[in-house]
């Protein structure tokens, strides 16, 4: 896993370098300072950091052979990762509505490639976490309650995306019904799932979960760099550039 993470360092290092090479090179808008919403991204960054905390608590519990607690924190990590993906879907949708696509300018191309690949990595991580939650789940009914919790979380996500108009053909009432139904299913499944006493020896899975955790934390540290370089620094730096280009266009016209 460490070798793989080393190769991933070079992969994301190249993508971030490419973003920086083409920074402030766009001749047409939208420019970063016009479109990037730093407060929302700060919240999503916080969510991803807290998912890393949940991940390390999950590993800690599994190493202590605490099956239910470990499974709870794994699912919490997956949920926080899914919320982060929801933020990213919302952001991409907003950018598309504002006219920023991968083909409109260099900022759009480099931004979507970089953050898109990161989002893909988070998606893989969420799937991996759900598999690990299944691995340390006792056989039988408990697996079905786990499935219920996942479906409930999915319904909540669909509802939230509907309310945010990312899913356009879902009315507000329909979105609220999705959220409410998803919450009921998730809470019921969760109560049933975690009430089952288990004597499963989950400590034997600590090594496998450690590998999953390494991947998840790596995805987190990549976002720490992206948040600083792409959002905070670039949005701050591009203000003068975009103003110069816009004033030049007005002067020329």
């Amino acid at each position, binding site marked *: 896993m460490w070798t793989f993470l080393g190769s991933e*360092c070079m992969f994301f*290092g190249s993508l971030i370098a490419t973003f920086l090479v083409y920074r402030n090179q766009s001749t047409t808008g939208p420019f970063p300072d016009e479109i990037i919403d730093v*407060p929302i991204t700060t919240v999503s960054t916080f969510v991803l950091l807290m998912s890393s*905390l949940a991940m*390390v608590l999950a590993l800690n519990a599994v190493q*202590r052979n605490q099956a239910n607690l470990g499974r709870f924190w794994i699912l919490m990590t997956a949920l926080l990762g899914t919320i982060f993906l929801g933020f990213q879907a919302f952001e991409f949708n907003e950018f598309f509505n504002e006219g920023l696509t991968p083909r409109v300018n260099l900022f759009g191309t480099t931004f979507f490639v970089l953050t898109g690949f990161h989002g893909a990595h988070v998606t893989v991580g969420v799937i991996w976490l759900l598999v690990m939650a299944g691995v340390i789940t006792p056989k039988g009914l408990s697996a079905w309650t786990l499935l219920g919790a996942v479906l409930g979380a999915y319904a909540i996500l669909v509802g939230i995306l509907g309310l945010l108009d990312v899913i356009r053909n879902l009315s507000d009432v329909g979105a609220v019904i999705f959220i409410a139904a998803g919450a009921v299913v998730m809470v019921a499944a969760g109560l049933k799932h975690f009430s089952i006493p288990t004597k499963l020896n989950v400590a034997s899975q600590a090594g496998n979960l450690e590998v999953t955790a390494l991947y998840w934390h790596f995805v*987190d540290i990549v976002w720490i760099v992206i948040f600083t370089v792409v959002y905070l620094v670039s949005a701050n730096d591009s203000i003068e550039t975009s103003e110069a280009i816009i004033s030049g266009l007005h002067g020329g016209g």
Partner: protein
Amino acid sequence: MATQRPESGGSRPGLLSRFFWDSDHRYFQLPKTYAEEANPEGEGPLGTKPRPWAKKWWDFTGGDHPSPLFYVIVGSILGVITLLEYWLFTTNLEKKWINSALFALSSAKFFMVVAFFMHLKFDNKWFAKLFAAAFFLAIGIFLATLALADKLNG
């Protein structure tokens, strides 16, 4: 599926066999890590043998097993740093100072996650060296790309 060790006819297995199989049915003879044990020693954030001056901190963080509270404290610090970054972004300080501070805070978060959450501080040193080598190679590629672009753009 369990890996079967090849029949060696009682003689010492060859180099290839030793690389791909061993008595634990592991594919590669990588060094064993604490993660393979249920209750490993030396899992604390200060390693297996804490310095005398670090004993108090060692006890607070749970000794061999960092307590969940320790991780919550690290997570809280990461959250506070993120809020601090946002506050810096909204200030009217000179940009070079803002950017320098942002990179410093980002680096602090990066190394806190790697050291404490990824357990690199108390994992096998082979892995730490492997990751560090790849990380610095990535930094080299990163800087070379920027330098090349700078040269080409005049």
